[in-house]
């Protein structure tokens, strides 16, 4: 009963508190967390893109060590603000503000190999996306485009595998997985396939012979690779959740009709029309610097797109900035 209350409390805290991030700066890790420990991370970030796209996130993450190999991860964007300039019916700017959805992701470490000053861990992560975020705003031009909204409006799942290797001088992390979004109110965000990597190298102190350094400094380089399928929307809902139907291509022509290359694609399209200006592929590099103490950490990261392909006339990323702070709390309550 206590654990159930704790999970609910952590969910409420995560819903109304800034988010924090795990050991790598843009994705969780399989790094060890002691039973009873709580890691709290706060990560405000800013993203700039084409078409006047600006987005501010304050992501929060709570990681709780339920046992020596099971951890609970709660993630939430609170708040998230996004704005973008659209061309139809007239040039105007749409915006959305509010909390995002909550991700509840249990993590199970099923393989580990420890040595003196080293650890190698492999974890499986699988959980749900809880649709508590704002997703049905409106403006003078009609419904706010769903791509700007903080929330997906529907339940989803997130599954992945994480590998972490820590040594006294460096850390390597890898994370790959899949996100599936359900449909809600005639709209469904496209599935996501991602692969992230992180490499961190200690630069200060250069060497140490004993004890535990009060502060360590790391150089960080992360990569994020994302394939985002097209969103789908139902014309039966009678609303244009994004400017897709009224969006004109650069040449002023109407977007082409969707194609169904297989029978399964045709079945998916029944009642749901792909949003032609959604989805794409993104590869970005994230150089940064990180400071680590005994129970705290601080990092700053830049997000630089290296390759991006977007469908239709969707916006492209220009750059992003992340600041990360985390803190560890200790409780005696665990399995």
């Amino acid at each position, binding site marked *: 009963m206590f654990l159930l209350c704790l999970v609910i409390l952590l969910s409420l805290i995560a819903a109304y508190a800034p988010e924090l991030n795990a*050991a790598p700066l843009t994705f969780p890790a399989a*790094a*060890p*967390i*002691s*039973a*009873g*420990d709580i890691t709290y991370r706060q990560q405000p970030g800013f993203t700039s893109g084409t078409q006047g796209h600006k987005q501010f996130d304050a992501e929060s993450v709570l990681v709780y*060590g339920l046992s*020596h*190999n099971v951890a609970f991860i709660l993630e939430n964007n609170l708040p998230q603000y996004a704005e973008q300039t659209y061309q139809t019916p007239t040039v105007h700017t749409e915006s959305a503000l509010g909390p995002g959805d909550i991700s509840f992701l249990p993590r199970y*470490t099923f393989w*580990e190999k*420890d*040595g*003196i*000053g*080293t*650890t190698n861990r492999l974890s499986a992560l699988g959980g749900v996306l809880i649709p508590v975020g704002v997703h049905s705003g409106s403006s003078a031009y009609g419904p706010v485009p769903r791509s700007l909204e903080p929330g997906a409006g529907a339940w989803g799942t997130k599954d992945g595998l994480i590998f972490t290797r*820590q*040594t*006294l001088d460096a*850390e390597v992390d890898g994370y790959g997985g899949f996100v599936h979004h359900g449909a809600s109110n005639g709209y469904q965000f496209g599935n996501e396939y991602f692969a992230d990597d992180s490499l961190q190298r200690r630069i200060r102190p250069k060497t*140490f*012979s*004993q*004890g*535990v*350094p*009060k*502060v*360590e400094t790391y150089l960080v380089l992360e990569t994020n690779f994302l394939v985002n399928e097209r969103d789908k929307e139902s014309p039966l809902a009678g609303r244009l959740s994004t400017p897709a139907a009224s969006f004109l291509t650069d040449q002023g022509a109407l977007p082409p009709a969707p194609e169904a290359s297989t029978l399964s694609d045709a079945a998916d399209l029944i009642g749901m029309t792909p949003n032609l200006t959604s989805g794409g592929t993104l590869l970005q590099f994230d150089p940064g610097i990180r400071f*680590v*103490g*005994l*129970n705290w*950490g601080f990092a700053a990261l830049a997000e630089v797109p290296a390759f991006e392909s977007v469908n239709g006339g969707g916006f492209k990323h220009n750059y992003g900035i992340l600041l990360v702070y985390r803190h*560890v709390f*200790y409780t*005696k309550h*665990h399995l």
Partner: protein
Amino acid sequence: MRHFDRSTRQTLGVVFSVTAMAFAVCSSPCIASSHSPAAGSSHVTGITAPLNPQPLIAPKALQVSIEVLGVAIPFTAFGIIHRLETVPGVTNVKFDLPTGKATLTFAPNVKVTDSMLRDAVRDASYTPGNIVWLRSRIVTAPPPREAQESGSSPDKSQTAN
């Protein structure tokens, strides 16, 4: 390959099981010869019960070094330090990151076992390694007056540096 009949297999199974159980009992740390009063070893692997029928008197503080595998950064050292501090009787914990060794100091009159230390390390999500007791000083009580009058002397073999 020679095939055994059913009765032979059953007999061999019983013999093997009894042998395995006897081996397990004989190798139990609870009755290890190093705990024998006559051993006089300066390293003990754990104190689960008084080594001598006579009560212990104000033993000096104990200190133990335990190897912890898997700790690589200060952030994760926090968890193991906190966890070892919860072991009953611990007054101080020091951790050395390059060697992965935690040095624990215990208050006097504390009973602590190796398994308690290993469980604390596993609870912290790490792997326990070697355990070495660095300092223990167990002083036995003086013999009863009757024993003194009869000329017997106290057993000093339990005193260790």
